[in-house]
């Protein structure tokens, strides 16, 4: 897993697996230089015992294989970048995962293709509202797949030309707040 965006995609798949109808993907860069990735869902949640097991790479609810490395890998990458990972979950209500990174840390992974990861989730899951919110000291923006479907008056966001345009739109919005070409703009970190 080479990019923060790919972790985001991976964890969001867990939310969808848990039957969520709303998944919020939040990337926030604080003025203090901490980058926080949150994935919030209204899926089925986990009990305390399952929650404890999520950091064990040899635990998974799958039956096709015996390892579950999504969360352990994200935890490892967050810790390598001077941060950490926390999960809060309530059975029947949903799950909140937060990973924190020191944005200027030499070992932080690049942000990666945030727009592409949102687009895949939004295009593949018509019945779910996939929200993306990004903010930095320079500003913020939000987009949701439900809103996009309504505004564009389409049933799904799967059309290739539409995907390209939506990705471009998000890329421009990311650049405007200092998330340029899959990286955090050095100038906002030093200001």
């Amino acid at each position, binding site marked *: 897993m080479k990019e923060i965006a790919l972790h985001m995609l991976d964890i969001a798949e867990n939310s969808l697996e848990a039957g969520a109808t709303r998944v919020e993907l939040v990337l926030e860069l604080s003025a203090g230089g901490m980058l926080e990735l949150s994935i919030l869902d209204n899926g089925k949640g986990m009990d305390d015992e399952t929650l404890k097991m999520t950091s064990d790479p040899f635990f998974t609810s799958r039956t096709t294989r015996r390892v579950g490395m999504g969360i352990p890998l994200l935890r490892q990458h967050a810790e390598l970048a001077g941060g950490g990972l926390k999960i809060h979950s309530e059975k029947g209500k949903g799950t909140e995962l937060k990973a924190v990174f020191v944005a200027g840390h030499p070992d932080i992974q690049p942000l990666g293709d945030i727009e592409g*990861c949102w687009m895949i989730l939004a295009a593949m899951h018509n019945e779910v509202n996939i929200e993306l919110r990004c903010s930095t000291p320079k500003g913020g*923006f939000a*987009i949701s797949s439900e809103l996009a479907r309504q505004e564009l008056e389409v049933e799904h966001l799967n059309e290739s030309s539409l995907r390209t*345009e939506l990705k471009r739109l998000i890329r421009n*919005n990311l650049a405007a707040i200092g998330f340029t070409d899959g990286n955090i703009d050095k100038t906002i970190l030093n200001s």
Partner: protein
Amino acid sequence: MEKIRSLADLKKIRDEKNKGVELRKKGEDAEKLVQVKVAMATCGIASGAKETMEFLSESLEKRGVEAVVTQTGCMGYCYAEPTIEVTLPGKEAIVFGNVNIKKADEIIEKYIKGGELVDGIIPVNYETIDSKE
């Protein structure tokens, strides 16, 4: 928080999109379409399934193949990720392993368009050591 700048931009996309583009109705006759499933669990994503999926959705549409590309979980072939399952109309599903963009291109051109089998098929009777226990 400010909504994506702006809704007007989204509407503009919609209007441009509606200009003369014929909307194809998919899913009505799913059995007549080529179905492609891309495994996108941790193992798949870490091996490049995102790029494979983007390439497949884009290329199939561009090359005029009526196909539905969806995602699926881990099929248990983590050693061969990215894996995809291709079902041609009226045929058995076939799973291909190590599908990078080059392989995906070959699968579209040879198997999906021409019905010719290509290297990289994971046999259906394949058993892992674990499953023999």
